[in-house]
């Protein structure tokens, strides 16, 4: 018998595959888990996140739903009430508004109004974010709605490693989680990475430092993390050292990592692609102003989308969204403050 051993070839995986693996592994691990959404069965979902799941787990556990986000979410709550764990897919996160009442009044409040008798292990996930020409109804980041609804966890991974580990953590969390996936990252080659072969999770509520720096802190999440990293590279060319923090989770929020960074840099900009007014960037800036004011040498700032919908064609779209140029310009203003 040949003793030849072949060294395993390192396989880099994209963000979408990472999500698919998380779902497949959790479905295998938990026989009382079910996935439901529009076109998620034979088709495998509009983007392919649920590819192959129905073939493995059957059409009773991977369910093609009518076009009714309210029924998708409401029935998921009922299943959770009766012992199951449910992944509810929104075909685009923009459509989550059609199920809004079931999320904020039914699901988010369930644990609270039953004084702890019931908890709801449901993950509502879907593709989010702009920069792809998706226009008004295929580009949204509406996370602030749900951050403003007590009882929901709200997360947004930016790497394949986090996408898999956080989705698994969300499915085991026991609370309702709104899971923002960045569709522009689904198949982005530059961020593909090797994933552990063993089971792992990335705990919700822990931020990650993506780049160390000492002059200014750029706080972001989702695809804007990459805009911040590109901005940091440009800033380095002009002698400004920027630290980049990826929040990963908005509720619960890792304030400590943010404040520790500001203690070092004394300057901070929060960057996100949601509209500015009452957005999460505003919330974070308020917390920094209240709790870390003594650490600051300049006013905390934000670079967000303008208070407009996301328009379709490229010049219009980029006009309203955060860009590397806009982040660099604001960083220079804050550094010189």
């Amino acid at each position, binding site marked *: 018998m040949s003793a030849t051993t072949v060294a395993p070839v390192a396989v880099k995986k994209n963000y979408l595959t990472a999500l698919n693996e998380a779902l497949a592994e959790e479905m295998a691990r938990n026989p009382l888990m079910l996935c439901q959404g529009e076109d998620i069965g034979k088709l495998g979902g509009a983007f392919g996140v649920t590819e192959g799941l129905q073939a493995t787990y059957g059409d009773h556990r991977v369910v093609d739903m009518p076009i009714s986000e309210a029924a998708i979410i*409401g029935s998921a709550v009922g299943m959770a009430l009766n012992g199951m764990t449910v992944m509810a897919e929104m075909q685009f996160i923009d459509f989550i508004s059609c199920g809004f009442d079931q999320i904020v009044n039914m699901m988010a409040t369930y644990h609270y109004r039953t*004084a702890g008798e019931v908890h709801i292990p449901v993950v509502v996930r879907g593709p989010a974010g702009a920069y792809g020409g998706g226009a008004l109804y295929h580009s949204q980041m509406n996370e602030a709605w749900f951050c403003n609804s007590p009882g929901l966890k709200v997360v947004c991974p930016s790497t394949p490693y986090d996408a898999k580990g956080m989705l698994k953590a969300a499915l085991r969390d026991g609370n309702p989680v709104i899971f923002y996936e960045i569709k522009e990252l689904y198949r982005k080659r530059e961020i593909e990475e090797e994933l552990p072969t063993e089971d792992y999770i990335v705990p919700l509520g822990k931020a990650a430092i993506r780049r160390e720096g000492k002059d200014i802190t750029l706080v972001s999440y989702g695809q804007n993390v990459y805009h911040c990293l590109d901005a940091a590279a440009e800033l380095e060319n002009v002698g400004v050292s920027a630290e980049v923090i990826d929040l990963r989770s908005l509720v619960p929020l890792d304030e400590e990592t943010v404040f520790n960074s500001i203690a070092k840099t004394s300057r901070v900009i929060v960057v996100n692609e949601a509209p500015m007014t009452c957005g999460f960037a505003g919330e974070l800036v308020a917390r920094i102003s209240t709790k870390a004011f003594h650490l600051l040498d300049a006013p905390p700032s934000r670079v967000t989308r303008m208070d407009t919908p996301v328009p379709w064609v490229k010049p219009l779209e980029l006009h309203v969204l955060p860009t590397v140029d806009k982040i660099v310009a604001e960083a220079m203003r804050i550094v010189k403050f």
Partner: protein
Amino acid sequence: MSAKSGSATAERAEQAIKPSQNLSKEDCLELFKQLYLARYFDVRLIKEKKRGRLRGTLYSSHNQEAILVGSLFGLAATDWISPIHRDMPAFFMKDFRFGVDNPNRLGMSIEEVCCQVWGKEGSPGRARDNWSHIGSKSKKIIHSTSMLAGTIPVAAGVVYADRMQGGNAVCLTYNGEGSTAQGIFHEAINYAAVHKLPVITIVENNQWAYGTPVEMECPTPDVADRAKGYGILGLIADGQDVFDVYDKVMQAVEHSRAGNGPSIVECKTFRAYGHGDHDDDRAMKYRPAKEIEEGRKRDPIAVCRKRLIELGYLTGADKTSYMAEGKNAGESSNDDFPPEIIEFMNKGIEFAMNSPMPAAEEAEQWVFWDGDKP
């Protein structure tokens, strides 16, 4: 099985002996007693409120008791219910016929329900939300909210999960005809019909949605007609007749148990008071007095009494004892109700009034689940 053959099953059931014809004398007298119990719960709370011993709004089920009593009576202990604001007695009357003191009964105690009404810590939800916004996972009662028809999809999910785990439970959801205008009413029934889920949507058509008459809410006279559009069973019951409600709901339950899916059971009834007790006086502005007078003539207690006399189950002095029918809270007294019912309510009310409110700090608790604590 196709929707068409499902309807055929229903027709056959209609031709067979009515389920109520199989009820024993004891069962029939129990139904009669439960009508009194539901009525007394309502009358007594209105009196308590008028005496200033109670805060919060009451949503009276007066004159609609036959719907609750008749629909609950034939359920198995494994079945679920989803009551709303006008169904308050359902919380303690679920599985009542198994004996109120039976520890295995899956219904709330009157003490728990009164604690909820009075906002005390003994409430199943520890008085975090008001009036009917309670429920119990262990007792298979879906927790209600203010979003009408909003629990129908939850009910569908509950029975889907039950089926996945090998069960054969049905879920009765209670709704007013006003809630049928909500999008979720359609979305949830459509979903349940696609999957043939055993969800029975009871529509208590009491002709009024708060201050709006039914003709301004529904374009057709019968809500049950909508069942055709989903290919599901649609039935109309006389909501004043506990036996007819029992028959129609049991027909729907058997239809579901046989795997034929959901149904709509419309119970025609009449709202005796305002939307809530806060609205009783103002209700006279939008409701003709004659309508109220006419409606009261078919009191469910009177309808049941007539039937029991015909069946020979009420004879002699029993025929006219405890004449609670046709009287509103102000007109009725304790003499109109059997003493054991008054005693039952007294026990609940005393317990609630002597119970503490929850501690203020509890307001911050249970926003998130933190794992199973020992």
